């Protein structure tokens, strides 16, 4: 199969962060390539370079054997590369037809050509099996229809290479099937398709070949027919690095935080957390595994009081925290730290100093109208010493610190508040090995103090070594809770993709923690 597009030695850095390191990748004509990788592994960056949003720092792109320069979305369009973004780029107040016409350039965009364009659009739609009303306004369309329109738009502009960034994230199962039918039609027309997705079952279903990225590097590609979900998970998560993470055994106390039947919606209004049940006990670290976007963020935000819940109960030490403002929940002893993908967006004020960030949650406790910076500075210095934060001074803006130190500041502040439930999401995101271990040690120390920890993580090896139990989520649903001492990465991988569900399956499989069958244990567990 000849290559439609070939990338050679592509590098892209953002500041000191290498998003893509020396990537070689090719897509054949009439091939569906799935691009797989964890969050932050550089998939979207790579595709943005193909579609002209970013320029590579070095490396070259070849199309049909000739080197091309893609320095704007227009030039990508001219070369026949079209991208369907995760967030749709449509004009809500325009009809479907007008949305296609505005991107067509001067000639086809004029009103005189409207009928010709309409015909072209309808022909293209018929060819690929789209069902679309060209006069419908975008604001009247459900999500799946908007996506159809986006794809149709790209096809109408003559794209031969179509990139889809997590197209299935917003679709139902049936809609996904329909989308895949369209993709197969495109393939038979000789188009090349690159699809970014986290869902392994879909990868197995639709793709011809799978390319895997990890930490910005190209790991390799495998033919879909010759691989399995298991192998892909391994490729994606990375081979086992043999490093000993200690897991101190602490006597577990009573459940501190109990979540019952919790349902939460995401920003788009879709169900993100679907009827989850679990609890965290003191002196226990409960890992949360799941493919990115399975509802982890919404779960954390719901517990911290930052996101309203649809239904369910959240009980902290016998008292319901549903509907409490974030401040109240904090005072109750639940502390949440979430490291988002940009690492600074939530939890820290990047332009403010370490001192100012230290007091973010308790500046109000000081008496009078003034902020107590004197003791804040001492606290900051204490945290800097204790966690070995590398910084010129306590007054350095957090933005100037390196990633590991930023995360230590955040975690240091959360611990300083003396919580009894610590929720931490991706605390080692983007950190090197040493800084990561430092963070694990900090968490272990908290555990020894009898704090209940909810650890939302990415790296399964780490979670298996560090957490006492691992709870697996898939599409917002609980797939089960396993004892990390008695389970395998493969099982967790299967649960992450939804292939295995052990909730309420008692004792049949090795490694099921009793907590999986929480219903039976409720009376006993809830004191």
């Amino acid at each position, binding site marked *: 199969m000849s290559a439609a597009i070939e990338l050679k030695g592509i590098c892209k850095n953002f500041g000191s962060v290498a998003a893509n390191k020396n990537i070689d990748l090719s897509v054949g004509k009439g091939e569906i390539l799935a691009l797989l990788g964890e969050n932050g592994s550089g998939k979207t960056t790579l595709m943005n370079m193909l579609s002209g949003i970013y320029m590579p720092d070095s490396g070259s792109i070849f199309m049909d054997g000739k080197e091309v320069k893609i*320095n704007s979305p227009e030039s990508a369009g001219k070369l026949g590369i079209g991208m369907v973004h995760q967030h749709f780029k449509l004009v809500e107040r325009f009809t479907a037809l007008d949305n296609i016409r505005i991107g067509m350039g001067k000639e086809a965009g004029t009103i005189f050509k409207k009928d010709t364009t309409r015909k072209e659009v309808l022909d293209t739609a018929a060819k690929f099996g789209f069902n679309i009303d060209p006069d419908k306004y975008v604001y009247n369309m459900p999500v799946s229809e908007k996506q159809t329109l986006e794809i149709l738009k790209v096809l109408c502009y003559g794209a031969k290479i179509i990139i889809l960034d997590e197209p299935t994230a917003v679709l139902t199962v049936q809609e996904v099937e329909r989308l895949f039918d369209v993709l197969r039609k495109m393939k038979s027309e000789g188009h090349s398709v690159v699809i970014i997705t986290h869902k392994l079952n879909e990868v197995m279903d639709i793709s011809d070949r799978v390319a895997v990225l990890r930490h910005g590097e190209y790991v390799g590609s495998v033919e879909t027919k010759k691989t399995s979900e298991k192998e892909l998970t391994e490729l994606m998560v990375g081979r086992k690095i043999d490093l000993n993470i200690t897991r101190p055994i602490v006597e577990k106390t009573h459940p501190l935080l109990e979540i019952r039947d919790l349902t939460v919606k995401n920003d788009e209004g879709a169900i993100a957390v679907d009827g989850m049940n679990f609890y965290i006990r003191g002196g226990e670290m409960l890992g949360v595994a799941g493919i990115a976007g399975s509802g982890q963020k919404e779960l954390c935000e719901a517990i911290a009081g930052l996101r309203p819940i649809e239904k369910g109960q959240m009980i902290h030490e016998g008292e319901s925290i549903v509907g409490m403002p974030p401040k109240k929940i904090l005072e109750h002893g639940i502390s949440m730290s979430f490291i988002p993908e940009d690492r600074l*967006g939530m*939890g820290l*004020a990047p332009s403010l100093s370490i001192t100012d960030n230290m007091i973010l949650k308790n500046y109000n406790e000081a008496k009078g109208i003034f902020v107590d910076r004197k003791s804040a500075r001492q606290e900051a210095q204490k945290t800097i010493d204790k966690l070995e934060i590398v910084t010129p001074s306590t007054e350095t803006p957090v933005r100037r610190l390196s990633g590991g130190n930023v995360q230590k500041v955040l975690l240091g502040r959360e611990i300083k508040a003396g919580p009894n439930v610590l929720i931490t999401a991706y605390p080692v995101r983007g950190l090197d090995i040493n800084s990561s271990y430092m963070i694990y040690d900090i968490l272990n120390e908290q555990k020894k103090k009898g704090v209940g920890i909810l650890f939302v993580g990415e790296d399964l090896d780490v979670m298996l070594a560090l957490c006492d139990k691992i709870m697996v989520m898939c599409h917002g649903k609980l797939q089960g809770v396993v004892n990390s001492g008695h389970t395998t990465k493969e099982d967790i991988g299967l649960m992450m993709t939804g292939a295995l569900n052990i909730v309420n399956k008692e004792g049949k499989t090795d490694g099921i923690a009793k907590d999986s069958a929480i219903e039976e244990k409720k009376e006993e567990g809830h004191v």
Partner: protein
Amino acid sequence: MSDFHLVRRADFSIRRLIICYAVGILISLGIGALLLSGLGINPFEYYKRMLTMGLIGNRYAYKCIEGLLKIFVPLLITSLALGLAFKMRFWNIGGEGEFLIGSICAAIVAFNSGSMPKIVTITLMCLAASLSAGIIGLAVAALKVRFNTNETLMTLMLNYIMLYLIRYLGSTKAPWNFFLNPESERPIFGQFADNCKMGGIKIGNFTLLYSVIAAIIITVIIYVYLKYTKQGYEISVVGDSSATAKYAGMKVGKIVLRTMFISAALIGLASGLATATAGTISESITNNAGWTGIIVAWLAKLSVPAIFVTTLLISVLQYGCQAAATQYPAIDSNFADLLQGIILFSVLAADFVATFKIARKGGQEK
């Protein structure tokens, strides 16, 4: 096809900043010199007069200082107030409108004050001005918090509403219109009674107006407010990352409302002081403080001491340009405005060059 793009400079160097500013100002003065030479004026003479504000060899030098302070005080308070809102990333560009409504309300008090003592009338005037402007600011903030309206558009449009309101008052002869001078045939604004005019401390011939003292006290208060109080801390957190502020349990909406009220009320206060100093109202009472204040706040990078210094420099520039222009028959105050514009523009350009660099697209960035 543009092969170049802008990259923010990673490092910050005060030396580069000063060099950029100096070069920028020199270029603008050079352009000004060309224009002046074209008009047959010796540019060196002109610039000398401008920088000394006509102080040297002037028997009425104290008048110059008084004139300078009349420009300085409202601009200082307005710039501080705008800086307060900008620090929270609330784009209050309605300084002009807030100033004008404040002025109108101060005049309402002044024209109806009867024979109350000076301290009472002036206080009432400032209070009326602050409150009216504050309420306008609060309304814009409330719409922003409640419906997420665009505060830039809202405040901008209010500028014009207020401008036309004061024009209407100034040109409508009617029995109800107490703003106008009753003795004049043509509609012109009346003068305030003496008990509504700003007083001051006499130092020889020079009068130090109380408004100057008020402005300096306000500067100190705002400095302390932003740097040391909880509310000031909240403003910086909300401005830096409102997601973080929410996460920390702050009531972001309340903070926005409060800060915008203070910002607009301060502009109102500036207006009250300026109106009492002028002893009358007019549509040019603002002296463009609402616009210039935006430039001052940004040039000073929102730092209070820097705003103080920048305001002083810009006031000298404004007053000096005017003072120099009056000496030459060939030019008038419009030339002063032109020169001022050129200088401000080049300073902004210098700031830009100091912050960004132009890099080749796709090239190695280091």
